[in-house]
């Protein structure tokens, strides 16, 4: 029986908090499992550095992901090359796995438009900052794939808060009605800024909302990367090759915790207890997977040290490259508004160029 066919209140787990298998370990090679660990560590290390860059004034407001690496990497791992990803604004780890260079992610949060330019070979949308709006795009994209007879699945990420928006309902409802190849992946990290999950919905779980849309909803331990992988993989396969009587879409609720702030502009100590944070840290996905990989002989001290050193280098290099990126030319803001620049925008660009020529940066930059 598929892992998706379970009560939405029965949470799927593969590893317990100590990394002991308590469920069926998915069929991944040793290399894949180690890569999964490496990418989770990379996401964590990147996150730590990014927060520190913001603190030092080297980057703008940034939304940290720490605690959510298992859900991000585990789910991204389950996609096939041809599948598509529609992120919210916190999926730096999932994006990295999909192939978005770290430098682009850094540039985006450093205020460069180039950070939003996804390389052509990466099947992924730019981040969506407005809440839950991307869910409809993901449904439409999946619908297009189906109409075009392309066997591709579309995963869409959003948070627990996002499930309160009308767009969540509309996106899942369309997916149910038109039977689109979607995987709706809810990163339930318990807090929408300061508002707890219980205040978003009176439902016992978010997963059970799928029942009303006519497709499967599964709750998974979002800090268990192997459980996340197993559920997402099953959902991707069903989206592309549904069995007799099966509906293509799936809602996955990945139960997890945001260890840090909503963004660097937020102070979580105002609204939640440090005891709660400590309790959730016991479920930290990274030591959990590491323990499992050590216990099964796939990792040892030497390999772990090598991975850490390599990752730290990789992140340092990306930061160096992003900071070396010259500030975009101001005239860039007039480009890509339309395929062809309108006469009015052309006139405004010319007027700007004249002023810029005359005053230089001093005429514009504020302290």
């Amino acid at each position: 029986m598929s892992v998706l066919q379970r009560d939405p209140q029965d949470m799927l787990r593969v590893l317990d908090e100590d990394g002991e298998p308590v469920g069926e370990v998915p069929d991944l090679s040793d290399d894949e499992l180690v890569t999964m660990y490496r990418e989770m560590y990379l996401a964590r290390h990147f996150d730590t550095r990014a927060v520190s860059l913001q603190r030092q004034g080297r980057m703008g407001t940034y939304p940290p992901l720490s605690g959510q690496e298992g859900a991000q990497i585990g789910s991204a791992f389950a996609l096939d090359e041809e599948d598509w990803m529609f992120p919210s604004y916190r999926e730096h780890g999932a994006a990295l796995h999909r192939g978005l260079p770290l430098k682009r992610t850094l540039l985006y949060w450093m205020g460069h438009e180039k950070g939003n330019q996804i390389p052509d070979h990466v099947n992924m949308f730019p981040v969506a900052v407005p809440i839950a709006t991307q869910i409809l795009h993901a449904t439409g994209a999946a619908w297009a794939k189906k109409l075009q007879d392309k066997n591709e699945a579309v995963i869409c990420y959003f948070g627990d808060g996002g499930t309160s928006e009308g767009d969540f309902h509309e996106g899942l409802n369309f997916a149910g009605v038109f039977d689109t190849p979607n995987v709706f992946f809810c990163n339930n990290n318990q807090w929408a800024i300061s508002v707890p999950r219980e205040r978003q919905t009176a439902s016992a779980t978010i997963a059970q909302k799928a029942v009303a849309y006519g497709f499967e909803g599964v709750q998974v331990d979002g800090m268990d990367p192997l459980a996340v992988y197993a559920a997402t993989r099953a959902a991707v396969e069903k989206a592309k090759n549904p069995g007799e009587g099966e509906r293509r879409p799936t809602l996955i609720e990945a139960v997890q915790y945001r260890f840090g702030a909503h963004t660097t502009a937020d102070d979580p100590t105002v609204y939640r207890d440090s005891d709660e944070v400590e309790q959730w840290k016991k479920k930290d996905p990274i030591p959990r997977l590491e323990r499992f990989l050590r216990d099964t002989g796939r990792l040892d001290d030497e390999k772990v040290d090598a991975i850490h050193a390599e990752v730290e280098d990789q992140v340092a290099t990306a930061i160096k490259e992003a900071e070396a990126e010259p500030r975009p030319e101001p005239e860039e803001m007039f480009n890509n508004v339309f395929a062809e620049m309108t006469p009015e925008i052309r006139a405004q660009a010319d007027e700007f160029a004249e002023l810029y020529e005359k005053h230089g940066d001093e005429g514009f930059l504020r302290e």
Partner: protein
Amino acid sequence: MSQSQQTQNLTLVQAVRDGLYTEMQADDRVVVMGEDVGKNGGVFRATEGLWDEFGDDRVIDTPLAESGIAGTAIGMATMGMRPVAEMQFSGFMYPAFDQIVSHAARLRNRSRGRFTCPLVVRAPYGGGIRAPEHHSESKEAFYTHESGLKVVIPSTPYDTKGLLISAIRDPDPVIFLEPKLIYRAFRGDVPEGDYEIPIGEASVRREGTDISVYTYGAMTRPTLDAAENLDEEGISVEVVDLRTVSPMDKETVVESFKKTGRAAVVHEAPKTAGLGAEITATIQEEALLYQEAPVERIAGYDVPYPLYALEDYYLPSVARVEEGIRDAVEF
């Protein structure tokens, strides 16, 4: 003004909070609702301490749904309450747009006065704080274009409190846009207790004789700075702060223009179909024969608000405002 004449020295965002506090104390029909307005005190701390003071039923953390906030606030307003809904950023207000324009703005009219909507929708707007994407737009023209909505944009702590109190007491829906760039940029004297600044009245911030410059919100400060600089060159600039962009105080706009015969408008919103166009048309209609030069529009460009690496080039700077004013004066 009430008996209390004590003043406090507050920032603009503290004046928002003080206005809410004052009205909540005076009128138990007033409730504050929105995302993170409760225990967290608002992401900008505009509702700080209100939840402790007034509790969960009057300072309400809602689910994350702007249409839900605006729509339920309309329902509350029709049933005798005075909701003040917070939209966390004006850039996230669009899911609520349908509720605001199709219902809040029209309820009185379409029910022939049977139902009314004494509702305030507060939202921080505007750029300049190195914020992420969708956090910096200035789209007051959307709401100005809609009949049945009043649109208020204060620029000082004193006006903020007085205008917010007026907005809460107003029998009709008011969109109250707060210039977050200057939330904490300076302090001003704010009386304790309640007082009103009437909606629909502009304020002449600086008197001058050569040109009238119309502005509002966060652009008031660079405009005043430009006026000071130009004064040294012998150009005498009058600065009119609209304070309410809808209904606009045409009388003050026209009176100032008749005195100077020249005008510029400064706003960070995009130029096309922005408030500058409305002010220019008003001058054409009411004071054409006084006009000595084309009206200069110093505005944001007709492009999506750029990510923050380029935002200073997008926002009207002091130098750009000076250039625009000079062009109008030297025409």
